[in-house]
């Protein structure tokens, strides 16, 4: 009779177990190494909310600040009335980062002099569309900005 038809002894079983374990061990080492050397593509950030690294008290009336939302800039501002509002800070014309102009109480793009009102609506210059608004929630000393549902 051949070996294959021989009954499985305890010794043969242990040898088979050890042999496959070595293969598994090698695979367990090489797989993460391979994934490290050839990592998957990194997609666009899907962040849906962010906690800002500064408290609400740091945003005075009629001022604004840029923050990082995923890998794009956002702008949070406090209106002259004291409301907190946040929008994408990417100008809808050619994608420059907008800023808050306290002297105008408007959001302004320095690249081509585009302006948006305090609701994010494009009101002059070349921007074709409004800025996308975010939801703003104040939790104690934290500001949480999130995409609108």
């Amino acid at each position, binding site marked *: 009779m051949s070996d294959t038809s021989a009954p499985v002894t305890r010794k043969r079983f242990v040898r088979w177990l050890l042999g496959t374990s070595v293969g598994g061990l090698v695979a367990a080492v090489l797989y993460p*190494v391979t994934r490290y*050397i050839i990592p998957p593509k990194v997609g666009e950030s899907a962040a849906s909310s962010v906690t800002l690294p500064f408290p609400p008290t740091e945003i005075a009336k009629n001022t604004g600040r840029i923050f990082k939302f995923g890998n794009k800039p956002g702008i949070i501002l406090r209106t002259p009335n004291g409301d907190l509002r946040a929008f994408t800070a990417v100008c809808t014309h050619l994608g*420059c980062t907008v800023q808050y102009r306290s002297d105008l109480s408007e959001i302004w793009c320095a*690249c*081509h002099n585009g302006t948006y009102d305090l609701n994010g609506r*494009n009101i*002059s210059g070349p921007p074709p*569309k409004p800025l996308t608004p975010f939801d703003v929630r104040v939790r104690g000393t934290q500001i949480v900005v999130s995409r609108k549902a």
Partner: protein
Amino acid sequence: MRALALAAAGLVLAAAPAAAQSPPSDARCVQCHRQLADTNLSRPARLFPTDIHAKFGFGCLDCHGGETGKDSAAGFIAKPNRKDIPALCGRCHSDAQFMKQYDPSLRVDQVEEYKTSVHGKRLFEFGDTNVAVCISCHPAHEIRPPSDPESTVYALNVPATCGHCHADPKRMAPYHIPTDQLAQYKTSVHWEWMSKQGDLSAPACNDCHGNHGAAPPGVASVKNVCGQCHSTMMTLFTGSGHADYFVQRDLPGCETCHSNHAIHAPSDSFLVEMADSVCAMCHQPGDSARVAFLAIRHLIDSLRVARDSATAILDRAQQAGMEVSQAQFELADAKDALLKARSAIHSFSVDTVAAQLKSGFAITTHAEQRGAAAMHEHLFRREGLAVAVLLILGVIAGIWLLIREIEHRQKHSSRSS
């Protein structure tokens, strides 16, 4: 369109209070006219229910006059004379008090504006009835508001509406003006934004020429017209040496370099030493300005290359699993600097452009350094990983050899015994 609406509304004005009560004679007009074989007579009756005037309760007699039908003594007009149409529409549309009842925000100066247009001047001063009147743009009996996508004056439809006459060589022949404006406009960046990117605020014919007061902007006015949207460029251009020079030579601002209807997206290729580049069209070899625009191009190219290089190294670092998101975030400001510098070209000053680029170079240098540091760290980790893997594989190989050695010894000892 509004003019026609005016016309309709104008006639209504005469009978304003009664208009909305739909006199029975209107129904009779429609009833008969719908049956007529002559489409010139039946079409108005079929179309009118879609007209904004019908929706406000105005009827045939409000514009065509007469109280009981074809009674010329009562003021019935079968087909208004084209020369009379502005006044006919203006009866209502120039009456602020009347128009308030229907649309308080609607302007009431269309007829006055029309009188300042080339169309209006030719109509009233030369009796030229071939020119556009209210109903040319706002077709009678099917007038829709500009917000209606089916309206002839909906932003997307305006070029075709103007082109209906202005792209017709036969119609334009007596005026000796070009007829390729529409074809040119449809190659422009403005049409691309409007038609492909859905930006209805992109300029169509009326944004530069006016609508009711349509006329070509004068040479001196071109920069002001473009500056309605492109204010940064207008301010820089106005302060530049080119502005006065252009006025002296009777050259229109903006248009001289960017064309008028075929305004293509500007590119850095305007600033090259080729005969057909925009700057080289005027500035010949040896001209000092040529040195300046080539210097500007060099500066812009330098930042673009630096930004591309920093972007590439940060992308590689990100792909390798390194945390560089903050550096990538900050690098976006280099794009702003590049765009501002491209706007600053309208100052025609190397120093002004260089000043805009300065912050961009600082950002790209910083980003490049952070990318290089991330890649260096990545390499260090890879080397460490290679050493660790070799050690682990060595241990595995050692265990395997040890197991074989044990087996070999066991076989050897069993044979000996």
